[in-house]
């Protein structure tokens, strides 16, 4: 069965510092990976997906099949990046999105 692990529950960084959120998955096939974000008092929403290979709000994520990881990175964190971040995995034919436990990011001034 597929599984998503986010080892950090809490992450605190200073404004302007790099931030990296770790995500590891277990799945033997070809997964589709996502990062979702929930800002304070807002709905959970998609931040980015690996097949798009795009940078959203300065965030990027690279799928590393060898290490089964999909870490989220931003070189210079901003205060508005403070939020809850979830890594999610979808597998072909299974048709469900499995979420990690989430990482709460706090960016301090």
């Amino acid at each position, binding site marked *: 069965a597929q599984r998503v692990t986010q080892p950090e529950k809490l992450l605190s960084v200073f404004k302007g510092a790099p931030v990296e959120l770790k995500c590891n998955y277990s799945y033997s096939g070809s997964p589709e990976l996502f990062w979702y974000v929930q800002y304070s008092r807002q*709905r*959970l929403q998609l931040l980015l997906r690996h097949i798009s290979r795009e940078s959203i709000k300065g965030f990027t994520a690279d799928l590393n099949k060898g290490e089964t990881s999909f870490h989220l990175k931003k070189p210079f964190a901003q205060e508005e990046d403070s939020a809850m971040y*979830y890594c999610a995995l979808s597998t072909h034919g299974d048709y469900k*999105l499995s979420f990690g436990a989430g990482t709460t990011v706090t960016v301090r001034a």
Partner: protein
Amino acid sequence: EAGVTQSPTHLIKTRGQQATLRCSPISGHTSVYWYQQALGLGLQFLLWYDEGEERNRGNFPPRFSGRQFPNYSSELNVNALELEDSALYLCASSFPRGPGELFFGEGSRLTVL
């Protein structure tokens, strides 16, 4: 455009009762997903409906059930409520044959006393 809407926002029940939660997807979306977000446990997949059919089910007991109506809205029923059913229940919708991007509602907070 209206987003995913869920009702009720809050629901308080006692152990053994039944709870019904409702979800209206974004217009044009035919897939509806239900997740349970219990304190400290992240989002646990409950059910996926597409075109009126249950397509997938998470690791939850049969007392968690639901359905999808012809207008693609959905209902989640939880029978014989237990204290540990207290959680935020999130509904999400997407275009068919998902999940690509899921669009989430604000959730229904169920409290079981």
